[in-house]
């Protein structure tokens, strides 16, 4: 079973330009679109991203799905994860990253397919979300909490302590394998 918790916040910006996409049937697909990235030259809206992902995630295998998304959204920054059984597949472009807690350490999840174990915790977030956190803080918060929502709350508290959530769009998903 996969437990998840999503967080979307304007961060005092006029509009929310990111997107967090999540489906659980037929398999768990998680995507974070970084529309608010200052580096990105893409004009793709969150709605276009979600519509495309909904279209391609239904019937296609992960590799094919990522190829199509890469072709149709060449300058966009996003990350897609698919969890099937005890495996996780990851594809990312630009400033969105997934980090996984393994053996008391926090590791960056690269593109590819990896095994998952019960109790594994994963954070998917935009670079803006990560920029207010340290790996040690993310790790400590993961290890002191029992649920994805508690973990996210502690991460948000850290960001709040740094800037009172006045820092632009914040988008993240916490995942826990049970």
């Amino acid at each position, binding site marked *: 079973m996969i437990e998840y918790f999503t967080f979307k916040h304007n961060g005092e910006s006029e509009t929310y330009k990111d997107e967090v996409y999540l489906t659980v049937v037929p398999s768990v697909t998680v995507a974070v679109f970084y529309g608010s990235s200052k580096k990105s030259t893409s004009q793709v809206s969150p709605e276009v991203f979600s519509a495309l992902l909904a279209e391609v995630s239904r019937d296609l295998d992960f590799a094919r799905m990522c190829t199509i998304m890469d072709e149709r959204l060449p300058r966009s920054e996003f990350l897609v994860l698919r969890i099937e059984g005890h495996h996780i597949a990851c594809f990312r472009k630009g400033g969105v990253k997934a980090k996984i807690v393994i*053996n008391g350490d926090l590791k960056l999840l690269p593109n590819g397919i990896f095994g998952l174990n019960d109790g594994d915790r994963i954070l998917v977030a935009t670079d803006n979300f990560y920029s207010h956190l*340290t790996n*040690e803080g993310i790790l400590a*918060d993961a*290890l002191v909490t029992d649920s994805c929502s508690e973990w996210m709350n502690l991460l948000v508290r850290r960001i*709040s302590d740094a800037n009172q*959530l006045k820092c632009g769009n914040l988008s993240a998903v916490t995942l826990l394998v049970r």
Partner: protein
Amino acid sequence: MPDFTLLPDQTVLLIEIAAALFVTAFLSFIYVSLTTILSLVRLKKIAGNDTDDLLVCDVAYFHCKGKRENQEDAVYISPLEDSFTNGVVAACSDGMGGLLYGEVVSRYVVERLSHLYPMNFDDPDGISEEIKKISSEVYEQYRLGAGATLVMTHILKNKMNFFSVGDSNIILVRKGRVTLLNHKQNYVSLLIRKLSESGSNTSEAYKNSRAKALIDFVGNIETNVMHTSKPIQLYEDDIIIISTDGVTDAVSLNKLKGMLLPEFSAQHMARLMKSAVRNKRLPKQDNFSAIVIKMDRSII
């Protein structure tokens, strides 16, 4: 056989002394070598095959009254000679100044912890339950009339569990990054949650007059002990600070960063921190205590 009969008696005596010294030195060398080999074998047994990477804790602490009349902080460091088998437990407790008997409670907390040593490193939930028991004992005695905070780390074989109740600090310095590992259990955390969920910024939370009020402490009913369920991996040159808020209220984490450098010993860092707090000369300086632990490469 050499013939010594032609040598003067004094020379023969000197040769005999030299021979005796040589034999003593040789036997000492054999003894030291055997002892070292036996220690290595013992450590290998304790640490499995990881002795090459085993780090040791360099520990120092300070414990000062500040401008208060009483010392309401209390510290505990487990016996370091047992560190390879039972780990290093370090704890700070800060008696709550607003309540009576803060001094008594913080001392009671660390004394009770010292009786729990050695603790089972693989059972942080069990240790957390013991801390809850201590809290219940304080509650039964004082019925919310006294309380204390508690921060504690347990380090064994390059791994660390931590435990926290209240608003004291567990700080990790790694590669120049300073991170407060635990969260302060105060009212502002509830306000931040509420405001962030509504999509607002959280500046109002910090302006609230009760923002710093503790929502949990040792001596509370059903205390929530924030603790790691699995340990954090530690690396060479990691620096861990367990301190009461008297330290961080006087010197910010950013300022502390400049004093917590891997080339310094734990003792030197503790001295620098203590001087920094003293040099602030705050008229109402709270009690201030800290334990500094530096993860060093083992001599083996």
